[in-house]
């Protein structure tokens, strides 16, 4: 694939500390059973890529982890906090979990710098000066400090997504969720976003990433999960997953997306 990132390190450290535990989890949209008996343990430092056909529930799964979607059965425990209707727990988890969206969801009425410093100021009560300094630090890391005073509408898609990543990092999260971060981007911009994500992985960030970028999965992920029909069909390390898929549906999916 043209957008394959360079310099990834597949042999990154993974600790044995459990950071997310999903147990027997079910979710329905009305009467539609979207997630069926999902079990997933994530250890600190893992880079998990979740793939599967559209409608397979992969986005819904990661959106359950920070309670953008509510699950109806089973347990989700993040950083030793169980996700229930208790708003305190939800807030605690959201402070630790960053998220990037397919359509970036930057705040168009705020400058890039304000986008990045908003949550630290209002959620963590960080003084404005300090929050802005942190924001600049992360904008430099995603290589767009010069855009700090622009509005999101004035940036390209790739730049916007990098701002969105910086915005999440400003909250100093322990876990990053990526919901198809490159699907809305032009081909030449995919790489700049993936490069930032690779950097992040190298620094040991725990990442769950819904994506169709199989190059990224091969070089960065330590585990690939394939979902279909709301269930986890297969999970394996990327090497085994791509070279030796076990399940028929996985084979079919891989043959379809790798054919081009």
């Amino acid at each position: 694939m043209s957008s394959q990132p360079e310099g990834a390190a597949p042999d990154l450290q993974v600790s044995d500390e459990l950071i997310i535990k999903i147990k027997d989890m079910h979710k329905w949209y009305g009467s539609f059973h979207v997630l069926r008996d999902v079990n997933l343990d994530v250890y600190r430092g893992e880079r998990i890529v979740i793939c599967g056909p559209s409608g397979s529930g992969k986005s819904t799964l990661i959106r359950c982890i920070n309670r953008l979607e509510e699950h109806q059965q089973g347990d989700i425990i993040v950083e030793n906090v169980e996700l229930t209707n208790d708003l305190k727990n939800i807030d605690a988890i959201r402070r630790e979990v960053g998220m990037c969206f397919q359509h970036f969801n930057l705040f168009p009425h705020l400058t890039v710098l304000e986008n990045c410093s908003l949550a630290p100021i209002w959620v963590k009560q960080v003084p404005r000066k300090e929050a802005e300094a942190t924001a600049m630090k992360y904008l430099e890391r995603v290589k767009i400090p010069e855009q700090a005073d622009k509005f999101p509408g004035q940036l390209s898609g790739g730049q916007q997504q990098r701002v969105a990543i910086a915005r999440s990092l400003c909250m100093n999260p322990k876990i990053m969720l990526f919901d198809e971060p490159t699907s809305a981007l032009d081909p030449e911009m995919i790489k700049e976003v993936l490069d930032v994500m690779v950097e992040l992985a190298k620094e040991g960030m725990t990442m769950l990433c819904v994506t169709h970028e199989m190059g990224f999965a091969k070089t960065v992920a330590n585990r690939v999960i394939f979902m279909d029909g709301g269930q986890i069909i297969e999970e394996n390390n990327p090497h085994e997953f791509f070279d030796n898929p076990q399940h028929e549906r996985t084979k079919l999916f891989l043959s379809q997306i790798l054919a081009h």
Partner: protein
Amino acid sequence: MSTERSHAVGEHPELPPPSTEVGIIGWVRHNLLSSTTNIVITVLTIYFLYVIIPPMLNWIIFDAVFSADSRDDCRAIAKAAGHEMGACWAFIGKRFEIFVYGFYPVEERWRINLSFILMLAALVPVLFDHVPNRKQGLWFSLAAPFIIGWLLLGGMGLEPVPTDKFGGFMLTLVIGVTGIVGSLPIGIALALGRQSHMPALRMVCVAFIEFIRGVPLITLLFVASTMLNYFLPPGTTFDLLLRVLIMVTLFSAAYIAEVIRGGLQALPKGQIEAADSMGLKYWQSMRLIILPQALKISIPGIVNTFIGLYKDTTLVIIIGLFDPLCMGRASLADTKWQGLSTEIYVFVAIFFFVSCFSMARYSLYLEKKLYTGH
């Protein structure tokens, strides 16, 4: 190969556009004479303006009489000057004070003047960003309504003035500005309430909005002037103007709520999701993320509602408050000036036009200021 075509591929120099495409000539060609239909429309428009504008200017300015003591006087002056009688603005000049102050006691009118100045001063920090000491200014804006209320009503050291002495443009401003200032926050609250996940709250808001929207303002004003007496315990005196203010505010709040709901629904769901995912609380997301964007989208609709409300203040005439039109009618009863209703209504129209057009221009300014390139 000619010299003009001698540059290599991809190195074509930038050339100025042909003179027929830019400047005045280009503009006229493109906008006024671009097709046969366009030419016909242009010619007809010019003819129409020629027919309308000169007589209008004659009536308003060139043939008008600006100082006289009666209508006959006006006519005599016009005759002496050797032209038709245009507008007799002298009448307005003589009546100007009653138009502005209503029946407010003459020796207390300074209070209205001071209130007007305070109102303008209080509006500046609210409407404009780059004013010195804006923060202190906003505190003043918050206090101003109370100071103005005290000035207009009296009490606590000032001669009390009953509200049935209020009238003219001053009454329009009191009702219009109170309605506008009061209905925006109530409208926002109603719009958010209507989107709430709590069914009870949502139903109360929906019922309120639909009831108010389903009833004409005049009916509500009648209710305010008569019906409330039946509901309130006997002997309660509940100022008529206050009732009108409440009704007008609630009426426009219902419309504002719907306008803002439109703005809220226009926002992509991702905005609230992003705010949620960063751990912002409901009110923080609303104040920092959702409302600034929703209100910005709603500016044209909000200002539209405000302009409607401002003009609807003239409806209070039917429950016996002395709005500018009422003042005009009263003036016409003066035998010295009989038959000058055109002048009166043109004058009142100009007053309303200036106010409403200012609001419209401000809304355009605000939209431009808040534009962030998306």
